[in-house]
């Protein structure tokens, strides 16, 4: 009640921004999404289309798979990195955070093309592998799912590391000391005290990476070379090549629903983490 009564005064301040968002962001999205059920008349045929045409299901399935693999890869790389950064001296922590953030300053396009140079058949990685005699022929890293996963993992790793690191720094050292003094081995302290306390941040960061990979466009487009279309690439094709706006709208709706569901889950985990 108090909130409703207090609303009008504050409402006045946000109203201009709210209207701007409504007119320029919410409304176009709503109109776009509405196309999936209103064109040419009220219908669900575009969704039937999605389900009945195997290519869309395959794209969705692949997107889901790549998003999951990227998320797991980011978690496996990011957790030890954040854990290592936590124990550094404050000056070194600043340096480490700067290094983690550094890629953000380079255009995502440049970074992605750089992977082509590194991972190509004549790239650094293949040359080293060949010279060491580990492989007989160049490994194809590019234009397949592996290349897309490598690229997205590289781009999205900071989104997991930074919040995870921030959460780990906030875990009180005395909790681990207390556990140790109560007779727990180092491994037990980590397993029963540190890891559970870092889990909400790991989950939230993972969900963020998952959401971002799910709608990723540039990196899959370049490193997949058109052979690994994900949802966003399929949308690009549907609109720019085939002009099938209704199907694109239906696919977008699916994308939005998955994203919102993930977001709701992360909020729920965050709230649980806060009360515990």
């Amino acid at each position, binding site marked *: 009640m108090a909130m409703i009564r207090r609303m009008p005064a504050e409402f006045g301040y946000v109203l201009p921004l709210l209207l701007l968002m409504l007119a320029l962001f919410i409304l176009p999205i709503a109109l776009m999404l509405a196309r999936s059920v209103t064109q040419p008349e009220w219908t669900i045929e575009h969704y039937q289309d999605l389900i009945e045409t195997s290519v869309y299901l395959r794209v969705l399935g692949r997107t889901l798979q790549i998003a999951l693999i990227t998320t797991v890869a980011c978690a496996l790389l990011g957790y030890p990195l954040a854990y290592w950064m936590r124990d550094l001296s404050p000056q070194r922590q600043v340096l480490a955070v700067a290094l983690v953030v550094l890629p953000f300053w380079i255009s995502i396009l440049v970074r992605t093309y750089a992977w082509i140079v590194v991972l190509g058949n004549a790239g650094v990685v293949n040359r080293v592998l060949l010279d060491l005699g580990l492989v007989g022929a160049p490994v194809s890293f590019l234009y397949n799912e592996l290349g897309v996963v490598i690229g997205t993992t590289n781009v999205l790793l900071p989104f997991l590391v930074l919040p995870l690191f921030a959460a780990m720094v906030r875990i009180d050292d*005395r*909790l681990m000391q207390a*556990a*140790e*003094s*109560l*007779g727990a081995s180092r491994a037990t302290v980590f397993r029963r005290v540190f890891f559970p306390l870092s889990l909400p941040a790991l989950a939230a960061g993972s969900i963020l990476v998952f959401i971002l990979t799910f709608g990723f466009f540039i990196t899959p487009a370049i490193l997949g070379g058109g052979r690994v279309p994900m949802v966003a690439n399929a949308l690009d094709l549907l609109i720019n090549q085939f002009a099938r706006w209704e199907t694109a709208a239906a696919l977008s709706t699916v994308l939005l629903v998955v994203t919102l569901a993930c977001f709701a889950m992360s909020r729920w985990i965050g709230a649980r983490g806060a009360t*515990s």
Partner: protein
Amino acid sequence: MSSIHLKGVSRHYGAFAAVDDVSLDVEPGEFVTILGPSGSGKTTVLTMIAGLNQLTGGSIHIGGRDVTALPAAQRNIGLVFQSYALFPHMTVFDNVAFPLSVRGIGATETRRRVEEALARVRLDTFGRRKPSQLSGGQQQRVALARAIVFQPDILLLDEPLGALDRKLREEVQVELRRLQRSLGITTILVTHDQEEALSLSDRIVVLDHGKVQQIAAPQNAYLRPSNRFVADFLGAANVFEGRVGSDERSIVMDGGTVIPCGAAARRPGTPVTAILRPERLILAADEAIGIVPAMITESVYLGQFVRYHVETPAGPMIAVAPGGNNGFAPGARVSATWQPDDVWIVADGAAPPA
């Protein structure tokens, strides 16, 4: 019940000595308090006994066993942190069960012992709650239950009452002492609160700048401090500076005022500093009968007590008397007197300038 022996324990950080050559013998079942201001190194001593901080010199024995190089997890010590350090993601029951489960104790035995420990701190019905749902005093008691549930050899308490309000602190003090006595567990408590130290301990270790200043029973530390620092830290004091009189039972101040004192154990003429606790300074309405005449400059009513600030030939002094109706008003001319034995020489004074 285990004894604790610290021998020449030191902790240096580069050239800085946080703890410098501390030796201490704690008897089995004894309650010892390490008292000192912040930065005195008292918590460092405690963390070194617990095994959470490395020694740079000396050795620590617990129950006759050399634990100097032993990791914290193998020392079997109950430790209560100032911040409680309860595991926020576990229930009260799981917190208290933690030391038992890492020791591989079965579910039935764990349940019995956790319930017993929670009953001891009167929190038997709180097992299913999370620490965040408890008050500060309750969290503190959970931390205590967790520290005793595995029958540790010794109990270490790091300012356990620091975060509690005054009334609660007094309650928990009584409870803590009762618990310690009933368990008979050797206990070291660290605090900066001299009242806490005086009321809880069998003996007090006063620490300053990493060095032991005095180890004594509370009353001795309070009335017979070994130096000026201990005297000031344990409470207010009237200070006299002068030279030992020819009878060796008085101090002659610079102005000529003679302060009767106990046996000086120093040669006549030695410059000394002596203290007299305010509640040992007695004010009498009759100006003639006292040792020195005094004039009340201020009276502060404290409920149980009245604190008088007086001006005397020996300088300004403070007296504390039981609160009553017949107090002295500012401006009243009275006299001050004391038992000579209550004037305690804390240090040889600085040599007068030549």
